[in-house]
Structure formats: C-alpha cells, structure tokens
C-alpha cells in the first residue's frame, strides 16, 4: 500500500477508471479528447489553459501531464509561468473580491 495519497505512476492508470464503469468512462475520454482537439483555439493554447487550471485545481497529475504536454508542443518555460500567473491572479482576485462582501457585512452590522 502506498504511503502517500499521490503516486506519479497512478497517472498511467487513469484509463483504467473505465473498467469499473465502462460507458461513463468511455464517454468521459471521448469528450476529453474532443475538447483538446484543434478548434477555434489551437491545441497549444488549450494546453496552456489546462496547465493554468491544473495549478488552480492543484492537481499534481494534471501539472505533470500538462507540463510535459507543453514541452512537447514547444511551449517555453516563460510561457508556462505566465499562464500559471494568470491562474494565480484569478485565484487571488476571487479571494479578494469577496472582501466586498465582508465590507458590506461590516457596514450593515456596524456601519
């Protein structure tokens, strides 16, 4: 039994989720594959979005996967870091914008 919750080797087993729920598993992977195809956005742009979201979701599997995916697409480390800052900015912005709610409450209760 693994002594940690996350094992990098588990990422390779992702496709196995289909074994315990075949139809849903296949539908998920079909959808997933379609999402990342070249469309109005390039596959490269989608890869960078995925990398940023992987960080905001703090998913170690996704971070490994989309860092490698970016390298494969020729994405530079500077581009990757900028993408992560976009995610971080939205995360911190989302925290701070709730400050308005706090201010509203203070004003109502103690204004």
């Amino acid at each position, binding site marked *: 039994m693994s002594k940690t919750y996350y094992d990098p080797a588990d990422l390779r087993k992702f496709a196995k989720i289909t074994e315990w729920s075949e139809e849903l598993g296949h539908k998920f992977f079909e959808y997933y594959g379609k999402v990342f195809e070249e469309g109005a956005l390039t596959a*490269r742009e989608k890869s960078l979005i995925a990398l940023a979201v992987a960080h905001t979701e703090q998913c170690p599997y996704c971070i490994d996967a989309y860092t490698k995916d970016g390298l494969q697409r020729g994405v530079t480390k500077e581009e990757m870091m900028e993408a992560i800052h976009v995610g971080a900015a939205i995360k911190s912005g989302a925290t701070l914008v709730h400050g308005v709610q706090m201010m509203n409450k203070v004003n109502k209760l103690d204004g």
Partner: protein
Amino acid sequence: MGKLKTQSLQKRHSDLANTNKQLEILSNGVFANGELPTFKNKISETNQFPLKAKTLEILQINVGYMCNQVCEHCHVDAGPDRKEIMTKETMQQILDVIKTTGAHTLDLTGGAPEMNPNFRWFVEEASKIGVQDFIVRSNLTIIRANKKYYDLPDFFKKHNIHVVSSMPHWTRGKTDKQRGEGVFDMSIKALQELNAVGYGMPNSDLKLDLVYNPSGAFLPGDQMAMEKDFKKALLEDFEIQFHNLFAITNLPISRFLDYLIASENYEDYMFNLVEAYNPMAVENVMCTNTLSVSWDGYLFDCDFNQMLELPVNSKAKHISEYKTELLEGRNIVISQHCYGCTAGAGSSCQGIVA
C-alpha cells in the same frame, strides 16, 4: 562557439560506451519483469513480426563520428575526440554500389560529414551519378566553425545538395542547453547564409529542411504545428526561411540513454514510447526501405542499429559484398529502442511516417 556541452561517452570511459551494456539495459528492467511488452511481442500482436526489408530507397552513409559539437543527446556519441573516419577506399566502394542500386536518395550523415577530409571529393563523385535526392545532414555550426568551411553554402548549391539541419528550438536557451553554448547564434548565422544563396526560399529548388528533436525526456509534438511555430518565429526574429520541419523522436540509446538514466527519466520515457505505440507507423518504419553504411563500410538496418553494433541479418555484411538479392527481404534486427520509431505519428530521418 563557447564551451562544448559535454564529452563523448567514450572519452568519459562510461559503461554505456559499451553497446552490450546499452542492449542489456534495453532488455532488462520493465521489459524483463513484464511491465512493458518487448518490441517483438508488441509487433507480433498485429502480425507485423518479423519486420522485413522492402525495396531499397535510401542509402544512408555515415562518413565518420568526428564532430565539432558534443550535443547532449547525440545517438552517435560523436565529438571532436572521435577518430572514426570513412576512407576514400570505402567511399569508392559505395560509389560503385550507388550506380547499381535503384535507391532514389543518398543521405550523408556523421558526426559532421563535412569534417571528413574526402567529403568534397565524395560529394563531387556521387553527384555525377545523379541520384534524385542527395542529402547532407549538416549541423549548421560547421559552416561557421572555420574559414575552410565558409564556402559550404556555395559548394552545396553547386551540387544541388538537399541540406537537412538540426534545430531543437527557435529560442537560444533551449537550443544551447542541448547543443552547447553559442550553437544557436552560429546556427542562425549559418541559416541566413544558406538563405542568402537561395536555400530554403519559397519556390526554390535548393531544399533546406530542419530537424526538430526534443531537448529533454519527452516526445515531439505534432510535426505540422511545430513547423508552423518554427517558421513564424524564425521569420519574425531572424528573417530565416526553410522548407519542411522533420520532427524526430529521441531514441533511448547512447548519450540520450545516458541522459535518461542520469535524470531518472528512463522508465517513464519507455512507458511514454510504448503507450504512444502506433502499428500504422510500423508499416513505414525507415529500416524497411533504408540501408545504413558505417564509416568502415559495414551494413546496418538503420543508423541506430549501427550505433548499437547490431549488423544486418544477411550474408552481405559489408558494402563490398552488396547484392540486392542478399539484402532485400531480410529480417530487420530489432530491440526495444525501435519503439522510438513507432510512437505517435512515427519517426524517421525524414520525420513522421504515419
């Protein structure tokens, strides 16, 4: 150019300079304990074993392992310290064979092929024979390495050579990391000089193609998308033009194998290759239409088998013994490194195959 990236495995007296050691690694571990199927078992699943040589189309000649660069991932283990150089006598034997084969492509590689003292004589003689496509794999920096090479663009042009050059990335950092400090700037200068004599220009018959191979332990992305990105960046930043980009997978042998092991990426990389296995790519792997000739005239199914010292499975082992009937239909010699040519869209010296 700045300092060399590294030293050859041979100069470092590395265990991996011994090809038996490399083959042992490729057969043990995840392939011996059944975690991953051997290449033989994998291609047997689709009845593609044994792989057989078809009609010869490409004769690839390695004229020597000497090189002015020592790239981190070189599968040849080339470098300035390598003294294996093809002699004029072997070149003459090859010229005799070129006249008799129906091969449409002659592909010179190394090391830096231009460093062979008989390189120019060989090109002149071979071009007289009139092969359809005459490739020289130039590392670019050689053109700027020494005055005696400055006229290479004109020499290539005179003999209508198809120039194929390595370029790991359109940025300085990633290129120099793999190929050595200063390589990027010299390569850019060399490409501009090739463009200046007409190479790589739109509608020009002087073909200039670039080879992209990843700078680390990951597989190449989509060849067309990479070509688009390379073209945009090189044109915008340096006004450089070229024709096609070939995306080539790094095979887990020689210095790249050493790098994979040292960086603890070997197992993951082999999983990646096996997961990306594409039986369609097996149909067109280059070993089925190519013959690789080593600096001393011996015959191999491909340049990678040459570096692993895996000779052709034929009675004709040397260029002096070349006979079409002895080589056509031969069983290709395989090991786990072959997964490198069958991953994704496949990989060959001419880029993707599927």
